[in-house]
């Protein structure tokens, strides 16, 4: 064990060194700064919202891709919490997305009905997101408690199994359409909600990485036995990460349901789960910015390859194999993209230009 820990130490050390403890130091000023930043971003998103939703200014096709990218970022970043940060390979993410999508859709369709007026639809989607997120969290808890006792291959196959069980159960509930699909869900999603969820998930994920809890999860990833020996309650941490991840996936599902207004159980099969996994792996497992990059690439790629639609999935799979053989750590590896790096890159170039 000791050997193993030593072997992984340099890597962990560099990672922790990269994560500047800026958030822990500082007091009210940084807090104020953060609040201001959040307000500014929210305002910017809210201003962009009517511009982008305007069909004359912005094509509906581009708008759709923009929305899907936002939803996929939420999915990929949330899966990265379990697969990348905690190192527990789960392949049932689509199941939790389905839980969020279906429970919230049933709520808005049967209980709340179509909202009348702008402020009401804001309340509606907020309620749907909360209910969907909680439902996803509960599902994640129920699945996580038994399955996270397993490791590696077994965990993967059990999460796959649970994902399928969720899908088959939905298939058998007639109230949500069963195999026919669930149509007539009110359109409530907006650019603002999709992208504030995506950005919120990214912020949450990055803050988690720099926190004690994030370090504990990373320790579990590197060596579970060693982490346990250091007094980390591995089961609790793993389940907590799993619940958080599935809850966020469920929120993505809520947004998807109220954007597409139609749900079909077949779109939540394990092909969907694999797609999210490809995003995470392509970007680099354990890297939040990698997950974002992966989500953007995997969403845009089929659009760019529209001419080659038939071979799209074939290309995906070939890409996945090639990636594993040539660069198993993905585009980013464990590293993160930060403003400082980008700034220093520009500075260096400027300096070079001067010289």
């Amino acid at each position, binding site marked *: 064990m000791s050997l193993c820990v030593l072997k992984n130490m340099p890597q962990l050390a560099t990672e922790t060194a990269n994560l500047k403890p800026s958030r822990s130091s500082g007091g009210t000023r940084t807090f104020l700064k953060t609040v201001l930043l959040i307000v500014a971003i929210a305002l910017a998103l809210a201003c962009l919202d009517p511009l982008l939703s305007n069909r004359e200014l912005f094509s509906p096709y581009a708008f759709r891709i923009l929305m899907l990218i936002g939803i996929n970022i939420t999915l990929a970043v949330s899966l990265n919490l379990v697969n990348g940060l905690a190192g527990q390979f789960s392949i049932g993410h689509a199941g939790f997305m389905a839980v969020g999508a279906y429970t919230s859709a049933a709520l808005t369709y049967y209980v709340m009905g179509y909202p009348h007026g702008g402020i009401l639809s804001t309340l509606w989607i907020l309620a749907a997101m909360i209910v969907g997120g909680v439902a996803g969290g509960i599902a994640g808890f129920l699945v996580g408690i038994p399955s996270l006792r397993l490791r*590696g291959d077994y965990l993967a196959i059990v999460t796959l199994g649970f994902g399928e069980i969720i899908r088959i159960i939905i298939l058998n509930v007639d109230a949500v359409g069963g195999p026919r699909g669930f149509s007539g869900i009110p359109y409530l999603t907006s650019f603002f909600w999709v992208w504030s969820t995506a950005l919120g998930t990214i912020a949450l994920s990055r803050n988690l990485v720099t926190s004690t809890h994030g370090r504990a999860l990373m320790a579990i990833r590197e060596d579970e036995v060693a982490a346990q020996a250091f007094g980390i309650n591995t089961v609790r941490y793993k389940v907590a990460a799993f619940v958080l991840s599935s809850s966020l996936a469920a929120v993505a599902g809520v947004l998807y349901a109220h954007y597409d207004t139609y749900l079909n159980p077949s779109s939540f099969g394990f092909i969907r789960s694999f797609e999210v996994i490809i995003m995470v792996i392509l970007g680099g497992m354990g890297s939040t910015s990698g997950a974002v990059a992966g989500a953007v690439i995997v969403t845009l790629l089929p659009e760019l390859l529209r001419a080659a639609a038939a071979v799209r999935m074939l290309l995906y799979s070939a890409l996945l194999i090639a990636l594993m053989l040539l660069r198993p750590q993905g585009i980013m590896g464990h590293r993160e993209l930060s403003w400082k790096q980008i700034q220093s890159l520009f500075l260096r170039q400027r300096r070079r230009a001067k010289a």
Partner: protein
Amino acid sequence: MQELTQQLFNGLIWGGVYALIALGYTMVYGVLRLINFAHGDVYMVGAYLAFFTIAALGSSASSIAGVATVFLTAMAGCAVLGLTIERVAYRPVRNAPRLTALITAIGVSLFLENGGQLLFGPNPRAFPQILTARHVLSLAGVSVSSLQIAIIATVVILLLLLELLVHKTKVGMAMRAVSYNRSVASLMGINTDHIIAFTFALGSALAAVAGILVGLYTGTIEPLMGLLPGLKAFIAAVLGGIGSIPGAMLGGFVLGMAEVLVVAVGYSTYRDAIAFALLVLILLLRPTGLLGTGTVEKV
């Protein structure tokens, strides 16, 4: 009661098919500690190879020589496919972290599924009935067709042959040695590369047989036919104790029976869920499977 017996008999056939596929999973897991996700798709390719061989043979396919040709061609084709997959995709990641190998296997599986859809067309095709004799005989009120008997006989014979191969031959001994400890086996002069390749070829050939049997039994084949049976066969392997050959057989039959029981009770729409429920149960109650032996984690 009679209906139940009939259902159980039908379950026996699916169980046999699961057992045949599960053997491939369990043998590969034994030597490599890798879930070969692509195995279910090798089974699909086997069915298609048989389909095209039958088409090429024309009317002579239903003769004894024709049937033998169909089986042998599909088995040989799948063995080559298995060898290729091992050589191209799995050997380079053999010493990489296990997750890397697992993801590669998922990639290969997706590749075969989508390649199959592209190559063979996404629509199901009718599988020609080369074993035409369909005399129905009655055994204690259970109607049995000659095809069903042929399927069960094939499965049982193959299982027995495999047991003999693994326990009575030199290659089998080498396989057991590799699965026990790969590095020590190679120190004892066993060419582990050859043994692993052989294991893949053998498992893939068995999967091809399963593919043909299912083609004959259900009458249709399609490029995604390997998805669910592949997963279920893996579950069967885990159920019986992964790495154990008798376990794979037992697991296959238990799973087949469990599925028809669910249908018989009236929950036919939950047929596909029972396998996963069984998997979850077995992993929680007895993670080593019914016949598996426990391993102690060393740190």
